[in-house]
Each structure stands twice: as structure tokens, then as C-alpha cells.
């Protein structure tokens, strides 16, 4: 009985570690996308304007607002990932 419960605990723990690692990688990808597209590279050379500002400035303003929303979601669902739990050396 005792041996069985230790084995179960180990399995749960290793599943947990795996999930945390996936979570950490997922959030890292999100962070990379946030950084990479803060500059709208696909508008390179564009000088179109809307409402008095270049469209690429509007994109940036919108993107940083989105970043705040994503940061808020991270605080809620991901905070601690890679730092207090599921760090690479576990």
C-alpha cells in the first residue's frame, strides 16, 4: 500500500512538472510574439495615415494596450511560472 501511494505521488509529481514546463514554454512564446510584433515589420515603408497619425503608430499603441491585457492575464493565470515553480532544474 505504502509503496503504491509513493509511486502514485511520483507520477502525479512528474505529470505536474511536465505540465509546468509546457506552461513555461507557452508563456515564453507569448512573450516572444509580444516583443517581436511591437514594431509592425510588415508595414515597413508604409506612410499611410489615419486620424492624424501614421497607421504604424496606431498599431504600436494598440499593441501595447494588448500587451497590458496579456500581462494582466499572465498575472492571473501564469505568475510564478519558471520562477517559483517548474524552473528548469525543478
Amino acid at each position: 500500500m505504502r509503496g503504491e501511494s509513493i509511486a502514485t505521488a511520483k507520477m502525479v509529481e512528474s505529470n505536474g512538472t511536465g505540465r509546468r514546463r509546457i506552461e513555461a514554454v507557452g508563456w515564453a512564446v507569448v512573450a516572444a510574439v509580444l516583443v517581436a510584433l511591437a514594431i509592425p515589420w510588415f508595414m515597413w515603408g508604409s506612410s499611410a495615415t489615419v486620424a492624424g497619425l501614421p497607421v504604424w503608430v496606431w498599431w504600436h499603441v494598440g499593441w501595447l494596450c494588448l500587451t497590458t491585457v496579456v500581462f494582466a492575464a499572465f498575472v492571473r493565470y501564469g505568475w510564478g511560472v519558471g520562477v517559483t515553480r517548474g524552473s528548469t532544474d525543478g
Partner: protein
Amino acid sequence: MADAGLQLAIILAYLLVALAIGLVAYRVTERTAEDYFLASRTFGTVVLLFTTFATLLSAFTFFGGPSLSYSAGPEWILVMGTMDGVLFGVLWYVIGYKQWLAGRAHGYVTLGEMLGDRFGSRALRMAVAGVSLFWLIPYVMLQQQGAGTALEALTDGAVPYWVGAGGITLFMIVYVTLSGMRGVAWTDTLQGIFMLGMVWIAVGWVLHSVGGASAATAALADAEPGHLSLGGGLYTPAYMVSTAVSIAFGVTMFPQVNQRFFVARSEAVLKRTFTLWPVLVVLLFVPAFMLGAWAAGLGVSPNANGRILPPLLNAYTPAWFGALVVAGAMAAMMSSSDSMLLSGSSYLTRDVYRQVAETVTDRREALVGQGAVVAIAVVAFVASLFRPGTLVQIGDTAFGGFAQLALPVLVALYWRGTTRDGMLAGVLGSQAFYLASVFLPMVPDGYVLPGLGGLGAWSSSVVGMALGLVLTVGVSAVTTPSAAENPDRYEELSAE
């Protein structure tokens, strides 16, 4: 100049308000090092948000940035938002949160202290402090120079450079030595809110006078059509990425910012500050830099110091408002400098003085800390009178210099296999390379990647960061930790 008296009165009134706040903070500050340098780790969201924000801003927000947008187009908005809004936010979590946990668990006050304890190395601790002070002091000097020349220009020379720069220095010495971190953070909060308000009023005023944003942008399209298109001229992809990466990582290692990772009262404060960060950055830099960009279409020319904002405001707003904005610019400059003085003093006191002096009490350490504030401020002020070319160059390249520290620190925080020798190699090797690129003509300061020439040249700062990473990891991999090292120091930390 008839308005000079009024303008000076506005600036003096502003300084007095800041001083009053410093005095209130003095009354509640205890005479211990942790309270003097870190306000006993008690800051809430508003104060932490604005003190970090104000500390990040310098004369660049009002002078350098708008002037660059005037001459090359407003793409600096993107560079600033990417580095301060997004990348710094991510680093706030990856480096800042981990440092906060470690600092709270083990009582660290400085970065050098944190590393010295983990690696059991006084040499590493002093090396990090030494490197930091090397880049910090010339940077303080540049801020004083900015304030001195701004006052001189505002008053048409009625306040000579040395009186302006000296007065500001003296003023900062008084409130920083008296009130420590608490006073600095409280005045930063006032300064941050003040700056934000000034920028938006300025935009409203100028746009109202010229018929709105669409009219201003149309005028810019006529005068400088290239400025509205994304990229071109100064702005190559490599320039934008290099600048954003180098400054974002550099900022995290600037002593006054790095030390703010230790001061939050609770995890909730760190979380809220982190979330609000990108919006705050957009709110300040989009209007500030667009003002500079629009000036190119409005036929305004930069003043004798190459600054565009003061003449733009002179053209479209009353003199008293221009003085308020210059006061805002000095607030920006002081909010960086006061924090730099305090942090520089803590590095000097804890990482250098305490390492060589025997039996230092808390009270005595706080006293030495106050003395160090005076010493750093006076040295930087005297240097600003002579402005030796070498020091100006060190100040101008300081962000790159601090950026070299970031990756070795990041590796140390997360990889248990990091060794003391790896850290020393990464820190000193990258510094040597970067310094050589700044001062030695045969070491280039820009690098074009083979096959990627179309992206432009990558800065030596980014190349040095990569070198530091390779050295830290590589040397750690081939050396074994000494008995004094504690690889578990940053593990098993929790917020509870």
C-alpha cells in the same frame, strides 16, 4: 528677457515643493541602511510604478527623443515602446521578480551583494559594483550638464551654466542625503505625474493652435514625406532592434532601476506595476516624440543646444508654459539623478567600503552612505564643468555598458551550474570587448551579419552581450564551483 523672472520663479516653486516632500520623508525615515537605501521594502503600487517610471526617464524624454524625431522621424516611439513597454516588462518578471524573492529571503540591498553571496566571492561583488560606478558617474554628469544648459538657454544666459548645474546638484544633495529612498521615491511620484501632465497639455495646446493632428501630420508629409514612412535613414531594422535590446537589458542593470526590484511591499504590488507598465509608456512617449516629429512640418528650428521642444513651445504656447515644461524636463533629469546618487552610494558603501572596513554598525553605514551621495554628486558636478571628452563618451554609452551585465546575471539567477569563474569571465570579458569598441578605433562599433546586410549594422553592445553569454556559460561548463559557492541560493524561493 522679460519673462526670465517669471520662468525662474516657476522653477524655484517647483523645487521647493519637491524639497518639502523630501523633508516629510526625512521625518519618517529611520537611521538604518535598509531603511535609507530601500525604505525597508515597503512600497505600494503607485509609488513603485512612478518611481521606476520617473527613474527610467531622463532628459531624453524631453530633449533627446523629440529632437531625434524631429530630424529622423517618429520611429523612436517604436524603439521606446518595444524596449521600455514590452521587453522591460518581460524582464521585470524574469529578472525583477526573481531578484525580489531572493532579496526578501536573504536581505540583499544591491546586485553585487546578491551575486557575491551566491558565488561566495568578494571579488565578483566588487567587480560588479566597480563596473556599475564606472558607467554611472559619467551618466550623472550628463544629467547635470543637461539641467545646466537648459536653465542657461531658458534665461538667455542670465543664469550661467555653473550656477544652474551647481544649484541643481546642491538641491539634490540636500534632499537625497536627508530623506533617502523614501524621499526620492515620493518626489519621483510627483515628478512622474507632473511630466505626464505637462506632455499632454503641450500636445493639446500645440495641436489646437495648428488645427489638429491631421493638419499637423499633413504639414509634416509636405515638408518631410520620408518621416512618415516606417523605416528609412537612421532607422534600419538592425538599429531599431539593437537599440531596443541593448537599452532594455541595460536599464535592468542600471543601479537605480535594479535596486527597485528589491523595494516592493508585496507580490501584489509587483504584479500591478508589471501590468500597468506598457500603457504608461505609451501614454508618455507617443505624445512627447510626436511633438518633435510635427515640429519638422511647422517650420520650427532647434535652439542652439540642438533641442526642438523649447522653440516649439515658444512658438505656440505662452512663456510661462514653456517654463513649466522646462521644469518638467528638469524634474525628469533630477528624478533619474537623485536615484542614481542614492544607488551609487549604496554600491560604494556596501560593496566597497564595507568589504574593506571592519565592524560597521547600521547607523554608521547609513552615515557613510550619506557621505557617498555628497561625494558622487560633487565629483560629477566638477566633471561637468570641464566635460572631458572621455567622460562624455562613457556617459553616452552607459546603457550599452550596463547591458553587458544583464545576461551573466540572468544565467546566474536560473542556472545552478553557473560558477564564480564563469561569472567573472562573462562580466569582465564582455566589459573589455565593449570598452574596446567604444575607445579603440580598430574595434568596430557596428557589425553586419554575413548574408543579412540588408538589415543594417548590429551594435557592439548587442555583440558584447552575446559574448558575455557565451563566456559565462562556456567557462562555467568547464570549471567546477569552489567550496564557498551556494548553488541553491536562488532556489526554492516562494512568495509566502
